């Protein structure tokens, strides 16, 4: 128990780093993901192809391999990134934006074509159709999957532990090595830190989802 209490400052540091990675790469991947989704539903075929190739490649590649690309492969091409949080944020953004794109795209596709046809039939223009009819409905069905993507991102920040970032999981690993008698307790503490973020977020996603179902 003493080991747990003594290491509270390190827990706090790790928690802050995990939160930093999740928030910064979350914000960046939301932006990049929405841009990718816009490309994937664009009327121009060449834009759709580019976005599709990106999304399919990234989604079928393990996150660890994306990290390896930025940390170990890119320097051999002459692009050296500072070790630590910068390549971690770039890798997490690269990976997560593909999943954001898919969530946004399926949200847009979940609005039935009839809705847009009805809007055009009563004389709304393209912008008004999007703003008043399609996007409000799409947004509702996009929010729960997006929260799930961000939960996955929070858990995925743990991969940075393998690439010289001191976040929660790597804090747990080094604490466990320093205190062999309290391994389960210390790792349990780390697990609680993750659950503090992921479980409330999951409940929020579920609540939004139920409201969306009822409002249809």
């Amino acid at each position: 128990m003493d080991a747990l209490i003594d290491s509270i400052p390190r827990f706090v540091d790790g928690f802050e780093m995990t939160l930093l990675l999740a928030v910064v790469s979350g914000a960046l991947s939301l932006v990049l993901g929405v841009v990718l989704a816009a490309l994937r539903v664009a009327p121009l075929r060449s834009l759709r192809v580019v976005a599709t190739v990106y999304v399919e490649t990234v989604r079928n590649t393990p996150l660890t391999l994306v990290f390896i690309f930025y940390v170990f492969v890119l320097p051999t091409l002459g692009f050296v990134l500072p070790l630590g949080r910068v390549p971690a944020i770039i890798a997490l953004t690269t990976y997560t934006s593909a999943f954001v794109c898919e969530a946004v795209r399926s949200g847009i596709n979940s609005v039935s074509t009839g809705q847009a046809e009805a809007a055009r039939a009563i004389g709304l223009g393209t912008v008004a159709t999007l703003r008043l009819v399609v996007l409000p409905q799409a947004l509702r069905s996009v929010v729960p999957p997006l929260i799930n993507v961000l939960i996955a991102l929070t858990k995925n920040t743990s991969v940075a532990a393998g690439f010289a970032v001191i976040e929660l999981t790597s804090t747990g690993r080094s604490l466990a090595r320093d205190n062999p008698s309290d391994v389960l307790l210390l790792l349990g503490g780390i697990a609680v830190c993750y659950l503090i973020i992921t479980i409330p977020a999951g409940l929020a996603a579920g609540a939004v989802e139920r409201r969306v179902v009822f409002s249809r």
Partner: protein
Amino acid sequence: MSGSVLYDAPGPRTRRIERLASIALAVVIVAVLAWLVVSLARRGVLDDRWEVLTDPPKQQTASDVWRSLIVVGLGATLRAAVVAAPLALVLALVLAVLRTSRFAIVRRPAVVVIEVLRGMPVLLMMFFGLLGFGLSSFEAVVFGLTLYNAAIIAEILRAGLIALPHGQVEAGISIGLTRGQTLRIIELPQVVQLMLPSLISQFVVLLKDSSLGFIVGYGELLSVMKNNYSFFGDTSRLPLFVVVVGIYLVVNITLSRIAVYTQRRLSSRIATPVDDLTVVR
């Protein structure tokens, strides 16, 4: 793209404009890619480093490199995934049945277990196995993959149990089966079939997560890649990386195709779900 929610089906003139704009953009994209290749080539990317794949230095043959990647590396990755997947499925069946029980005293603990397992990173679970329970790195990888995916698959199966028309259970009860028999003979076989596409997609996730073995010291595909480029030197990193990405893409895209194919084949064979699954889940 006719029938889109975002815009009206285009007329002939718009289609012509779109096609021209698309071709023009394609030219721009190809030009950007070409510029990228040229500028990388100036940095020496197209030099003899690719020979590691065809005629490697240090008295190694190309077949040594490829065998280490595909037989040893991919083999170890698949072994971890293939051992973990059935274990996860069995554990998931148990969790899903407990989770949907009528009795709160059984249901509540199952909810807690599923939520805790779902809310933790897989890598942390592997460290639990490795450092907490003294497992070998292979066992730790299987341990983490099994527990995490059991929770996810349990939720997939639960969605299937909810989606199955209630008449199925009622029919089972009315011909005199017990609840357990109804579950085993009528519900679960249909649910597993119904959810087969989701289960295959989850297997892709599991396969990708087995790459975390790289961090806990299990000699899977990425570790083998690293050993290779440590041996052949830094310039061999890019070619080996490209091959490993290619291996993952081939394996995972094949599995995803199978998922789509089974979905199409199965759609006619099962009692129709009460609701759109994407909404229920």
